[in-house]
């Protein structure tokens, strides 16, 4: 087992919104930068728009932390530009994503127990 795989995910928590969305975007398969950016916009209903600096800055830090890695698996050359770099989750990245989701779930449960309104109520609503 490598050092990154043996690492505890808790040391990486809490994730920034950009990092958690990037990991989530990569959860179902390898993607290149633009595909990650588009998926993050979809996942967040357009509330999180990442520019090139934010995206590649986050990827740089996550590569350094061993959460993601570049992959040599290329799609069909007919379908895509071979110059693009593809990224995928590492084992540690998967565990960190799982731990972050568990952390958020626990927070949501606490919020529900405290009867926190998840969306601002329209004016006049009971």
């Amino acid at each position, binding site marked *: 087992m490598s050092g990154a795989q043996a690492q505890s995910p808790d040391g990486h928590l809490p994730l920034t919104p950009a990092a958690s969305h990037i990991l989530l975007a990569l959860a179902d398969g390898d993607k290149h930068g*633009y595909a990650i950016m588009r998926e993050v916009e979809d996942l967040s209903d357009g509330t999180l728009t*990442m520019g*090139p*600096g*934010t995206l*590649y*800055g986050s990827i740089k830090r996550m590569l350094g932390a061993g959460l993601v890695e570049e992959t040599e698996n290329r799609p069909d050359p007919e379908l895509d530009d071979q*110059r*693009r770099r593809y990224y995928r989750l590492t084992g540690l990245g998967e565990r960190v994503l799982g731990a972050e989701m568990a952390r958020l779930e626990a927070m949501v449960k606490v919020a529900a127990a405290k009867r926190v309104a998840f969306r601002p109520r329209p004016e006049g609503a009971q």
Partner: protein
Amino acid sequence: MSGPRAVTLYVALLTAYPREVRDEYGDDMVQLFADRYRDERPGGNLLRFARFWGGIVGDLVRTALTERTESVVANFKQQWWKWAIGLVAALEPVLVFGAGVGVSASLLVSAVPMVALVLGLGLLRSRPRLAAGLLVFGLLPAVVAGIVYFWFPPMYLVTLFGIYLSVRVLMEAGRLTRSLAPA
């Protein structure tokens, strides 16, 4: 603004990032920018144009500042001893003046090691061995400070620091000499 002109402008804006970031991710960032520009087509509508470029410039300013700061901190952690040598060079006239040789003589005597330190730092990458010799010579006033001011124990620390910096310089020169040697 046409797509190619927008890409040219974005490439120019990328100089805001440190070189290591541009070398590693510059092409990917340009590709991502070009993809977004192609898909969002902000050229035809003033509001869309302003929103698109506002987002791009805001992202660039925020992240370039972060990357620059990280780069400076990382550089300082690696190269702090060069700044320490600069500090020693600046303090050498004080060390020599304290020995009681007078202001003019102090400046004159300390000027030689100061010039050696400045030259040494400048030549370190291209002529590591010569630079190491100059730097060790330039550090001599700091190394002998504990002997000259033997009655003032804090100066022993200056001597130890001077010796440490000299060893650090010799190690760095050795590393650079090996990296410059033909394989």
